[in-house]
């Protein structure tokens, strides 16, 4: 039994390692790579979705390479924690805004890092001044606009055009 559990753990770790980098493999391909069957992979993925281990499958988009303008800003937020709720309640009020991409509770000089994405600097500025800084318990904010994204989620955004000269046949 404990062997089954160990196997399941290593299978799940294998699934996460693979789809964490590329979630587009078919169930058949995953099963072949992990030496199991399609049904098992499907069942384990479903279970990890239910457990909120796998939380979504968004594509990583470099909007800079499209005609659509997007602006990303990182905002440091200082808040007053609330009795019984700590930071969670404030965080919730912030992350429910659609513009908000990510919210992290931080150690250090400020409390929350909020990453937001808007159509323009104006839009972001408006969000900060009208929505974020006016929230009860938010004491101060500092906004930093992202000038260029080099790498996100482990992926280098602008592929270096480096045609590798790997030979076609070697011993």
């Amino acid at each position, binding site marked *: 039994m404990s062997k089954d559990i160990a196997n399941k753990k290593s299978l799940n770790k294998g699934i996460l390692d693979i789809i964490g980098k590329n979630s587009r493999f078919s169930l058949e391909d995953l099963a072949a790579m992990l030496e199991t069957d399609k049904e098992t992979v499907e069942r384990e993925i479903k279970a990890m979705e239910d457990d909120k281990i796998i939380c979504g499958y968004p594509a990583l988009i470099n909007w800079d390479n499209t005609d659509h303008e997007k602006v990303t800003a990182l905002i440091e937020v200082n808040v007053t924690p609330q009795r019984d709720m700590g930071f969670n309640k404030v965080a919730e009020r912030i992350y429910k805004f659609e513009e908000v991409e990510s919210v992290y509770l931080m150690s250090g000089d400020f409390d929350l890092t909020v990453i937001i994405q808007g159509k323009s600097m104006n839009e972001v500025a408006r969000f900060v001044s009208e929505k974020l800084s006016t929230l009860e318990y938010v004491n101060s904010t500092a906004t930093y606009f992202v000038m260029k994204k080099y790498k996100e989620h482990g992926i280098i955004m602008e592929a270096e055009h480096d045609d590798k000269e790997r030979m*076609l046949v070697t*011993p």
Partner: protein
Amino acid sequence: MRDPLSKKIVQIQPSGIRKFFDIVSEMKDAISLGVGEPDFDTPWHIREEGIYSLERGRTFYTSNAGLKELKEEISKYLERRFGLTYNPVGEIYVTVGGSEAIDNALRAMLDVGDEVIIPQPCYVSYEPCVILADAVPVIIELKEENEFKLTKAQLEAAITEKTKILVMPFPNNPTGAIMTKDDLADIAEVVIKHDLFVISDEIYSELTYGSNHVSIASFSGLRERTIVINGFSKSYAMTGWRLGYACGPKAIVDQMLKIHQYAIMCAPTTSQYAAIEALRNGDNDVENMRNAYDRRRKFLIKALHNMGLKCFEPFGAFYVFPCIKEFKMSSEEFAEALLNEEKLAVVPGTAFGNCGEGFLRISYAYSIEDLKNALERIERFIKRHRK
């Protein structure tokens, strides 16, 4: 004009891979599963250490045997991974890839007419290097039904009173075969009984799946008669850095070092600094790459089996060695036809010895996407040619 050439060199055949390489190079847009090197880049922290050493102006020769720090790290690594103990002073030296170490070891130990047992299929350089050392290669043909392992009986049958060295190329290129501890115990016994020496080429030692690599030098009585060859190319994806090493009893290493000293001087300094970083902080990289190879291995084996291609399951290196005898073509014919019809390059088994006839070496040092693309071509090809 007199003949400028050495008869010894002229009689050595160019590598069969070379010939196939020339054919592939002529083919436009061909894709390949023919490469014997990792597809990963050297991990950045290792490259960065090489760059840093250049920035600091560490561009001088090192001592012949290599940087002291590097030899110490190699010593610790061998102990940590394989339970081998070698003194960094006198029992280890750093070479230009495993290939140089193979040549050094053979030349340091052989006299005219000595015989060297080489189990084939195997890496292409043992046989010519034995000839360069004025000795006589004796080939053992490994069998698919033994999963391309060397058996005690085969070894016994090949030994004569002139036999001096046994080359042990495991984990094996091109078959992917490994030798387990039990398999090696049989061989070790024969080696001692016949007073042989072993050159154990363990360059793929980090790439075994399901069990850890066992070095024949770890058997009692074998350490004093074995030269262990290893390096950074396969384990850390550092082929282009050209860095390997050899370990063994001081008396043999001293003589190998003389050849290295006069022919090479020392291994590249930049590579040596990078290698120190690899051994100190690279265990994770090795594990990640091994896991990736293992997934590809399983993926590839399953796909080949689904096509009905006969292929034993290899547990080492990054090759599979499927049998293509059902198609009534030689390995070379098959590989050439596959290249012409589907623009896919794989290496004919015969490039690694005559007994590779009827087999192909397929490398899985490629992304799953590349493998899928190639597998579609193989499937189309074999459907067309299967009667």
